[in-house]
C-alpha cells in the first residue's frame, strides 16, 4: 500500500483489479457495431524532461541544438492505455502525430510498443501550430478513419497548453474526459476517475469519446526488441496540410520567448549547530519574509 492515506478512496463500481484477457470473455463489450475497437492515440515528440531549454537570442523560439527528443510522457500513458484496451477487447491502434520529420521516431516508438499503424502529419507550414491548428489537423486525419476512442496526453510538456485533446473532441463532436487517472470501458460507455482539488470524481461518458491521460493511469511498457523490428514494417501514412484541408493560420501566437525571470540571490543560514540554524531560519521567515 502506498503511503499518504488516500487509499480509502474506494470508488466502488469500477475496477475489477487486474481485469485482463481472461475477463474479457465474461465481460462482453459492445463498442459500436463490431467487437473490434478502433483505437486512436495522439502523440507528440517533445524535449526530454531533463533537457535544458535555451531561448534563441532573438526570442523567436528555443535553441534545439543538443536536445534529446522523446515521446511526450503524458502521451505514453495514452498509448499504453490504448494497447491495454486492444489486448483486452481486440481491435487496432492507430498513432497520429503532428510534427517535423523527427516525429517519425516517436511514431515508430509507439508502433514498437505494439500499435498497428501510424499517420504522420508533416508540413513545414504547420510548424508553430497552436492548439487550434494542431487539433484541426488531428481532427481531419482522425475523421477519415474509424474511431471508437481517442487517447491524448493531458498536456504536452513543451508548450504546456493542455488544450489539444478538448479542442479535438469539440471538432469531432465528441465528449471529452480530461486528466484522468483510471479508465474502464464497459457496455458502450467509459468510466473514468478524475482527481480534482480535494476530491476525486467518477465520471461516465458515452462512446466514442476523447480521453486525456494523467500520470497514474498506467505504467507504460518499454518496446521489446522484436517489437522494434516489427515496427519498421508497420504502415505510416504521411500527410500534409493540403491533403487534410486544414488552415495553418494560428489563433494564439508566442510573440516572444524569454528566459525565466531571475530570482534574487538567496541567503545561506550559517553555523554549526542545527538548532541555532533552525532558529535563525524561523527568524528570517518571520521577520524578513513575513510568511509564517
Amino acid at each position, binding site marked *: 500500500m502506498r*503511503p*499518504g492515506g*488516500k487509499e480509502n*478512496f474506494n470508488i*466502488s*463500481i469500477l475496477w475489477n483489479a487486474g481485469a485482463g484477457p481472461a475477463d474479457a470473455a465474461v465481460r462482453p463489450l459492445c463498442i459500436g457495431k463490431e467487437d473490434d475497437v478502433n483505437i486512436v492515440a495522439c502523440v507528440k515528440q517533445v*524535449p526530454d*524532461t*531533463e*533537457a535544458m531549454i535555451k*531561448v534563441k537570442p532573438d526570442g523567436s523560439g*528555443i535553441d534545439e541544438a543538443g536536445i534529446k527528443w522523446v515521446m511526450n510522457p503524458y502521451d505514453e500513458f495514452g498509448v499504453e492505455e490504448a494497447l491495454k484496451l486492444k489486448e483486452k477487447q481486440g481491435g487496432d491502434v492507430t498513432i497520429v502525430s503532428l510534427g517535423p520529420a523527427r516525429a517519425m521516431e516517436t511514431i515508430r516508438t509507439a508502433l514498437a510498443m505494439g500499435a498497428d499503424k501510424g499517420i504522420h502529419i508533416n508540413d513545414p507550414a504547420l510548424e508553430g501550430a497552436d492548439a*487550434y491548428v494542431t*487539433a484541426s489537423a488531428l481532427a481531419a486525419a482522425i475523421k477519415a478513419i474509424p474511431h471508437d476512442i481517442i487517447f491524448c496526453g493531458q498536456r504536452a*510538456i*513543451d*508548450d*504546456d*497548453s*493542455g*488544450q489539444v485533446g*478538448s479542442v*479535438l473532441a*469539440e*471538432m469531432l463532436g465528441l*465528449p*471529452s474526459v*480530461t*486528466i484522468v*487517472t483510471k479508465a474502464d470501458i464497459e457496455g458502450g460507455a467509459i*468510466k473514468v476517475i*478524475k*482527481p480534482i*482539488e*480535494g476530491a*476525486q*470524481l*467518477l*465520471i461516465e*461518458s*458515452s462512446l466514442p*469519446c476523447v480521453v486525456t491521460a494523467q*500520470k497514474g493511469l498506467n505504467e507504460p511498457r518499454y518496446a521489446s526488441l522484436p517489437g522494434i523490428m516489427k515496427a519498421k514494417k508497420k504502415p505510416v501514412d504521411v500527410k500534409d496540410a493540403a491533403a487534410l484541408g486544414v488552415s495553418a493560420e*494560428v489563433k*494564439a*501566437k508566442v*510573440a*516572444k520567448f524569454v*528566459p*525565466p525571470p531571475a*530570482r534574487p540571490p*538567496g541567503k*545561506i543560514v550559517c553555523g554549526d549547530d*542545527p538548532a541555532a540554524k*533552525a*532558529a535563525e*531560519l524561523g527568524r528570517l*521567515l518571520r521577520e524578513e*519574509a513575513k*510568511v509564517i
Partner: protein
Amino acid sequence: MAKGVWIVAEQRDGAYRKISFELASTARKLADQLGEEVCAVLLGSGIEGIAGELGKYGVDKVYVADDAALEPYTTDAHATAVAKIVKENDPSILLLGASVQGKDLSARLVGKLATGMATDCTDVKIDGGKLVAFRPMYAGKCFGEVTVASTPQMASLRPNVFSIVETAKAGEVVKFDAGLDASQIKTKVLEVQKDTSGKVDLTEANIIVSGGRGMKGPENYNIIEELADVLGATVGASRAAVDAGWRPQSDQVGQTGKIVSPNLYIACGISGAIQHLAGMSSSKYIVAINKDNEAPIFTKADYGVVDDLFKVVPEFTQVCKKLLA
C-alpha cells in the same frame, strides 16, 4: 466590435473558489486600462444568492444561469452555457482559472469559440489595446509572451498568483437561460469522493513542505508531516519519492506532477532536478534544507540551510511551534 473583459467564475457547493476573486480583480485591472466593463459568468444550481458578491472584486455585471443541469459541473453543460452567453455578447477578453475545472472548460471553449488561449498564465497586461499574456512553457524552463489574433482573446490564470483587490462595483445580476438540451450532455458525474483529510490541495496551498530522496524512506515523512501540521501546510514530494512508492502520485510537485505557487515552499532533502524546479519556481519564497551544498535547489532558494534535514527539520518544527504559539 468585441468589447468587455469577461471571466468565468468558479464555485463548488455554492461557495466561490478563491480563483474567482483572483480572476475578477485581474479583469478589473485590464478593463480599467481599456475603459471597458467587467462581466462574470456564474453557473450552477441554487447559486443566484452568491452572484452579487463578485461586485466587491470589481465586477460590473454577473450573468447567472441557475439550472439543475449545471450541477455538478460537466464539460458539456458548462461549455455550452458559457459559449452561448459569450457569443451573444462578444467580449474582447475571456479569462478563466487554470484550476482543474477551469483547464477543462477553457480548452473546450477554445474549440467552441474557435479562438486562441494562453494557458496557465502568471501575468497578463494590455499593450496597444490587446491582451499580452505571460506564461511558463517547458514547465517554467522558459516563458512565452502570447497574443491572440481572434476574439475573445482567452487566457487561463494560474491559481494563487494574481492578487485579490477589493474594488466595489455594482455587481448587477443578469439571469440568462443556459439553453441546455439533455441530449447535448454526454458525460455524467456518478460519484464524488471527497478527501476527508482536511488538507488544502497542493495547487491551492499557502505553504508547502516537500520531501525528496533525502527522506530515505516513507517512514521518515512523519517529520515533514509534523512541520506541515504546525504551519498549516500541505505535504508535497519530488518525483524520486513518488516513483520510489514513498508518497502517492497526488503529492508530486514538478513537470509531470503538480505546478504549485505557494507563499512559502520548504524543500527538504530535495536536490532540485530541473523537472522539480519547474514545478515550484513560481513560489514566492523558497527554503531549501539539504546537506549537499552543491544541490541545484540552492540556486532557487531564498533561504538555504546546508545540514542534515533529520537534525534541522525537527528543530525547525519546535521553533515554528513557539513562533506561532
